[in-house]
């Protein structure tokens, strides 16, 4: 799957986690979204792991700085 294909999925997970629509773009970081703290970060990660039945590598998690990184890592892990 392409990176772009993950944005709708991410949007749904962000909406459940933050209980509002979050306008996702690649450059969006935790600092831009009120309430996006380390707990919410883990929620997002665990939600994705459950949804796709995958496990993120610790190194992958350390490389996440914005939404674009998340989509890139997902696109690299999940084959259509």
């Amino acid at each position, binding site marked *: 799957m392409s990176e772009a294909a993950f944005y709708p999925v991410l949007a749904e*997970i962000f909406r*459940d*986690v933050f*209980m509002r629509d979050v306008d996702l773009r690649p450059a969006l970081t935790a600092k831009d979204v009120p309430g996006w703290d*380390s*707990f919410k970060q*883990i*929620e997002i990660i*665990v*939600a994705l*792991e*459950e949804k796709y039945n995958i*496990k*993120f590598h*610790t190194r992958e*998690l350390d490389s996440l700085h914005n939404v674009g990184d998340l989509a890139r890592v997902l696109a690299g892990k999940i084959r259509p």
Partner: protein
Amino acid sequence: MTALYWLPDLPDWRSRLRGLPDDAAAAWDAAVPLANTRIDFIRTNALDETLRRAIGDAVPAGAIGKPVRLAILGSCTFAHLHAAIRVAALRRGLHATIYENEFGQYQQELAERGSALHAFAPNAVLLALDAHHLAAGVSSAMTNEDAAAALQETAARIRDCWRTIRDSFACQVIQQMPLPLHPALLGSNEQRLPGSRAAFIAALSGELRRMAEAEGVDLLALDARAALDGLNAWHDPALWHRAKQEVSPAAAPMYGELLMRLIAARQGRSYKCLVLDLDNTLWGGVVGDDGLEGLVLGQGSALGEAYIAFQDYARELSRRGVILAVCSKNDEADAMEPFAKHPEMLLRRGDIASFVANWGDKATNIRAIAQELNIGLDALVFVDDNPFERNLVRQELPMVAVPEVGDDPALFARTLADAGYFEAVAITDDDRARAAQYQGNRAREALRAAATDLPSYLRGLQMQLLWRRFDRVGLQRTVQLINKTNQFNLTTRRHTEDDVLAIIADPRAFGLQLRLLDRFGDNGIIAILIGRMLNDADLLIDTWLMSCRVLGRQVEPTSLNLIADQAVALGATTLLGEYIPTKKNGMVKDHYDRLGFRLTVEEADGTRRYALDLRAFTGAETFIDVKEG
């Protein structure tokens, strides 16, 4: 698996959460049903956050029981579990306030009378020391003697904490069992190396179990759960390294459940009575149609053994104090017969404290059971393989627990156990005697319970009746139903395949197969209607039979509308109905009276003949949408 899979899924959950009222009391009342659905940790957090915005920290008016003031004394991160603990309380209508010690300060806070912990004044304290903390300093380099001494020292330190908690707060003390998260050094015989951290935690867990009995401490057995679900479901080493979370966030809803069951049990709020359906729940088949010999029960088939295993679980529960009741749509005599006569039945009539078998709706009957046993509806758990009945009871009696048991009897017992309805922290002599107390000597109280709002339930079912003429595709099923249905069968005329083919070919007769769909799915072919013109004016209803699964859903008047249409199309002006009594079909004795037919003849053998003038007939309005298809 840590999902709350026994709870029903709610399709419009998200919009219901968004629509949670701002008013504190109303928000609480609306949130309780949302908590009683199959929610994962994200929805659990969302529910908690939304509700707390509405109610703040105050105990809302609708909360029942004693407000829970839970202090968590731990050595690692718990903040990600608070929401799930509060929501597990909410699920029971209880309000919980949580205090958590400053990181790593639990012993100091316990010791200092002026600490925030003492100011909080908990009425339940959870001591939750993670396995890494407990095994700190233990090493395979230790001698066996040093390892044993370390074990005793750690156990004594925990016991001292318990005693301090009890002395300070005089409240329930809960010990969280450590997760077996240390990798093995030897393997299967890890206990031969007492300095192995895995062996140390295993030995400490044994010691904690022994001590807890002597000290009256309740255990939160995460280790037992991890054995069931797999350690990976509970613990993620990556999250331990990242955030010092011993319990994975995905397991949070189950964690909250396990903890709150213990607290609710101490408040006396566990469920007390298991109400059982019979057909396809305690045995395979429909006793009224299949007869005693036709039931799938006992040795000889995997399915039959699965029903026996479930009966065994129910009987074991009753022996430790859970009351058993039966709620079945059956003639009472049919329902009782297997209990008295089937050689493979484990449960006996004497095991059942309240036995209700009739054709009334199950919500009304469950009310009657609660009344007869003199216990609250919120003490009842209802097990039924039929989703229609489960949803009816859930809608009419939301305080009754109705697990999604599915229809595979092999999974019934585990589902009940996972749902934890009957959590108990002590077994008294009263519990052991209870089963006996409820046996016999109980006259049935009149079923004069409040009427159930069936119309609104039926409307919500979005029922569709699809009818089609007999055809070769459905031939086998048609013949099978004609020859197997005993209870809802007006004439019990048995027809062969050739007879059915003759009806298909006869232009002055009709045969209809009826299929019922609703929002829970397809109920399959549920009724067979056969009519034939006797002359130019009179149409005889030769056969009218129906599956008892769809009783009480307005299928009967809807079927009559169909028959009338077909009869008019053949030129009939009068419908003739017959009731021919058998040992099994007493339930439809008044069928035609209920539908407005006029009794014309009653014969000595009980056969009744009826007529209905089609020229004066207007079809009944029902909640069923009728289509050919």
